[in-house]
């Protein structure tokens, strides 16, 4: 988050809605994410010309066309790298990357992890539908093992990435997860990203109703949701279930699910601490693990200087020390001599 520049007139969702017709399949989870983004941005009180959306290629990567901000729909996998250039060129901008599980983790995986380790002050929204939507249904690096798709008619052979685990492994300073269908939570996570100083990684489970329908229904549909989702809140015990009747406990250093009742009380439940790396790694390991609920919310958030900030400091420091560079002295540097 670069320095906030407050602006007088109050913005509305309309201010962030471009004139382009939205072209996703009816029912696609992308609509909800777009809507929540357009609703949340006006609350930041920031001049809208300061926002830049950069995307790669994929259904999700069409996103920038629909936001009435500066936008660049670039090439497959390179959004994070292009965004880095935008941010470094002008650190006053608020830069957002919209990417998919293919765009950001398959072809673009390297740029994504490097952006994280650098703690470049850029917000990554990764729309994870566990499929390649745009190219019509091949499996992606987040598809479950054995998945039958166009390119794997007999089932895929790759174990999937666990995006928060990867982000933690790449030393991201902010790792969170949300769901397309949870409008309020989605909004709050977008706000958290905006507020975080440094790079953020927000994985958004997104339903592709055409090629991978229902991939996350377990976490969004009424009948299964309560038992299946662990809503993370900093400083709060990790409890879940319709009546919050379950909790996570550490048995030595091994996590286990407990039921509150005779044997266990809420005091036995582990309390979430967003700044604890080992805890975050443990939570990440719950992903798609049937023994545990799916962690949703901020898994990890710590402060660290951002690359862009340090670059500006370095420039300021050098300028102070050596004086502002003059073209003339640059040209005339080194050993010179005069021919008359």
């Amino acid at each position, binding site marked *: 988050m670069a320095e906030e520049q407050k602006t007088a007139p109050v913005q509305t969702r309309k201010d962030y809605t471009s004139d*382009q017709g939205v072209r996703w399949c009816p029912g696609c989870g992308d609509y909800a994410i777009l809507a929540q983004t357009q609703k949340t941005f006006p609350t930041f009180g920031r001049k809208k010309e300061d926002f830049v959306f950069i995307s790669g290629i994929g259904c999700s990567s069409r996103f920038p*066309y629909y936001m009435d901000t500066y*936008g660049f729909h670039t090439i497959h996998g390179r959004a994070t790298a292009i965004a880095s250039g935008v941010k470094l060129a002008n650190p006053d901008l608020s830069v957002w990357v919209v990417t998919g599980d293919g765009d950001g983790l398959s072809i673009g995986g390297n740029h994504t992890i490097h952006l994280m380790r650098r703690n470049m002050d850029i917000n990554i929204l990764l729309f994870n539908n566990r499929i390649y939507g745009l190219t019509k249904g091949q499996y992606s690096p987040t598809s479950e093992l054995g998945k039958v798709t166009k390119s794997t008619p007999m089932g895929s052979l790759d174990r999937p990435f666990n995006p928060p685990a990867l982000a933690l492994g790449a030393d991201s300073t902010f790792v969170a997860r949300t769901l397309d269908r949870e409008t309020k939570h989605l909004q709050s996570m977008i706000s958290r990203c905006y507020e975080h100083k440094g790079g953020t990684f927000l994985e958004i489970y997104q339903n592709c109703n055409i090629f991978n329908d229902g991939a996350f229904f377990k976490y969004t549909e009424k009948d299964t949701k309560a038992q299946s989702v662990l809503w993370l809140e900093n400083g709060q015990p990790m409890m879940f279930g319709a009546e919050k009747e379950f909790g996570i406990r550490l048995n030595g250093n091994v996590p286990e699910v407990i039921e509150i009742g005779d044997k266990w009380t809420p005091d036995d439940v582990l309390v979430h601490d967003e700044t604890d790396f080992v805890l975050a790694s443990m939570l990440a390991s719950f992903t798609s693990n049937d023994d545990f609920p799916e962690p949703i919310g901020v898994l990890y958030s710590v402060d660290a200087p951002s690359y862009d900030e340090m670059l500006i400091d370095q420039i300021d420091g050098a300028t102070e020390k050596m004086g502002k560079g003059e073209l003339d002295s640059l040209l005339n540097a080194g050993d010179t001599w005069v021919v008359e």
Partner: protein
Amino acid sequence: MSKNFEQKDRVVIRFAGDSGDGMQLTGTRFTETSALFGNDLATLPDFPAEIRAPAGSLAGVSAFQLQFSSQDIHTPGDEPDVLIAMNPAALKVHLEDLPKGGYLIVNENAFTKKNLKFAGYEENPLEDGSLDSYSLFSIKMSEMVKHSCEGLDLTPKLVDRTKNFFALGVCFWMFDRPLDPTIKFLEKKFGKRPELVEANTKALNAGFNYGETAEIFTTRFKVDKAELPPGKYRNVTGNLATCIGLAAAAEKSDIPLFYGGYPITPASDILHQLAAWRNFGIKTFQAEDEIAGIASAIGAAFAGNLAVTASSGPGIALKGEALGLAVIAELPLVIVNVQRGGPSTGLPTKTEQSDLFQAMYGRNGDAPIPIIAAQTPGDCFYAAYEASMIAVKYRTPVILLTDGYLANGSEPWKIPDVDSLETFSANYMKNSNGDSFQPYERDKETLARPWAIPGTPELEHRIGGLEKEDITGNVSYDPVNHHTMTVMRAEKTANIVKHIPDTPVYGESGGDLLILTWGGTYGAARSAAETLLDDSMKIGHCHLRWVNPLPKDLGEILIKFKNILIPEINYGQLIKMIRAEYLVDAKGLNLVRGRPYSAGEIVHAAKELV
């Protein structure tokens, strides 16, 4: 004892030794001193491929050649007049280039059994008479420096390392050069270790004095100052000149400079140099790979910076897809390719001109990009400046081709007057004049589209890699629009021809033969042309600065000559473009050996053809 001074117009000297012997440093010192003295000069560093070979091996030989002259010269020279060989391997590798009668200076102490064997000598050539036809000066340099450094608190290894300064001292004596600049240099370089300053200075002096007192040298040489155009000079390598050119463009246009790139030989020095200029507000970003390098530059261009990426052959290959994005997005961007030997990893430390076609066509679709090529180390400055200017004015990526020879070679460079540089500016779009903003509405003159950068109120807009609708820039799949835009992109590049001045032809403006060159082949071709004209041949030399678009008057020039010879350090690239465009039966000279042509080779090819 005073020695005779023999007057010379030009001398070619080559320092050769083990990678660990500091030959590049020695050569550079001789170069700087001669430059300061006022000679014209040209250099050719030639170091081994990136891996450090074992000491004393043939693979580990490093060399540095320079020609210095009292006249205007264009090349580091064909054959050395003087060869300094610091060990048997260096002798083995370089002796074949030394003409009979040439001066040969060797470090006798290095001709040990082990080293001889390593270099593949059965017998010691210093003893078996095989060097009789050269003017051999066999000096026990290692022993000498041991004496000169006596009493200093240094390990024998460090003492032995000073022997290159001994050799340099001998050469300074031979060509009557002052020691002062080198002593100052040593003080600066080793400031924190005075014992090293002292040791090297002692070695340098010892070498000089050895020349003065030893009986073995009978002649010294005088190479007068060159009659260079008046002005202030410095010595620059091509890579340094490129950096200064880019920085100058940024300063003059007042557009912040952004560099995104990934290290690769021989382009890395551009990153190193620009990274040192933080106080100019220059931002450098060492990306995770070449794709991220150009991608970050495209992002910076979108955000309003003068964005640059540089690499070499294989790294440029990786940038192809992103280059296409820059073409369709019509953003200013400078891409520098310091060409090296290919294909693939090829010959990483050797020079070549074989990436012209990659620059023209190395990406999908019809995606034209203007190409400018630098012709000498110093000219890299102007080429980089011009590339930046055209990129900004025409809102287009521009490829700047240099090569390993230009990048590492150096020459005296007349420092330009800041005010003499053509000014240009970003002309960022400031507002939409009340109308809705059209990101692909063009300037009539340049066909450039507006540069409306994030942060500007009311110009929010979206661009991307899908085909754009003319004027609005919206995504368009319309067939006719696609044709329109394809033609538009082609014409936008072709239109840059307006900017290219008439092509000068050196020598005759018509006749038997035109030598047509581009890039680093300039120097050898110009020297060859001088020789051929001296022989009263009816020839001309025409050198291309812009390779795409080709200058508008080139066709008229070509038809005035019976033969056209195109020397390139590749297997025939410009020649194909010329034949296709002008339907002339041009002939190529295509020796692909990872090194520049000698003037003699071009003279020879020209004579064969006529």
